[in-house]
């Protein structure tokens, strides 16, 4: 059952990314291009998603456990840290360069062509490289 609903959640996520325009890199770059021909669509995407999810967190707060068992995620970690900032800046740079973030990169895999596949392979390589880099950053920070 967990796998059936994980598949359904992934599918719904992918449909939402496609319908909303998140898999169209022109719209994403248009949203980030505040000094060009600015496209506000992504504000509506984020607003719609956050609005629905805010209700879900309220429901989770009054329920004991997820419907399929296990436990709800821990409350958010309050500590910020350098990795959060450095990582988010690197991510934002990559996102701005071509207009893809991890969800849309995977959702558009079947129609993204060789460039889409290349992006995904580079992204996975970056993900494999991240833990050793994190260890070095933490060692430097002492």
């Amino acid at each position, binding site marked *: 059952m967990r*796998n059936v609903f994980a598949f359904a959640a992934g599918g719904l996520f992918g449909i939402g990314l496609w319908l909303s325009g998140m898999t169209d890199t022109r719209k994403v770059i248009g949203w*980030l291009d505040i000094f060009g021909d600015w496209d506000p669509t992504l504000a509506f995407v984020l*607003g719609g998603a956050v609005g629905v999810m805010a209700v879900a*967190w309220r429901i989770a707060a009054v329920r004991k456990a997820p419907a399929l068992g296990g436990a709800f995620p821990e409350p958010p970690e309050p500590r910020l840290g350098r990795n959060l900032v450095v990582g988010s800046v*690197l991510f934002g740079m990559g996102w701005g360069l071509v207009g893809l973030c991890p969800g849309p990169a995977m959702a558009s895999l079947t129609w993204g062509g060789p*460039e889409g596949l290349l992006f995904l392979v580079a992204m996975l390589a*970056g993900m494999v490289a991240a833990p050793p880099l994190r260890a070095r950053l933490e060692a430097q920070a002492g």
Partner: protein
Amino acid sequence: MPQDWLMGFIGGGLIGLAAALYLLLNGRVMGASGIVGGLIDGSGGFKTERVSFLAGLVLVPGGLVWFTGGADTHLTGNWALVILAGLLVGVGTRLANGCTSGHGVCGLSRFSLRGFVATAFYLLAGGLTVVTAKHLLELI
């Protein structure tokens, strides 16, 4: 344009609904980079559940797009840029422990300070990158 905004809002609502299902049924935070990253570096549990999620994420929109006549990502054909961007997105989201879905959708909606800080920095970095690469260097 307002039609794009409406589609954005509806699509966003579906993204929120997917995240809500994953939280209320499976008890998991729906973050794309965390789900795939925890699988490939072996750091996360719930392995078959991650694979099932990713299969849905690739196959369901893929089937719909194929059925409705195709879509275009308008991704640049500059391979060097694609590789550089992919590496940055991969390293960055794993260092920060989240991307647009984890820190953005799931973090902002539970008033997580980390979610707000991450979202502020990746939006700022993304905006500055587009301004630099498009208007100053004319790379994209």
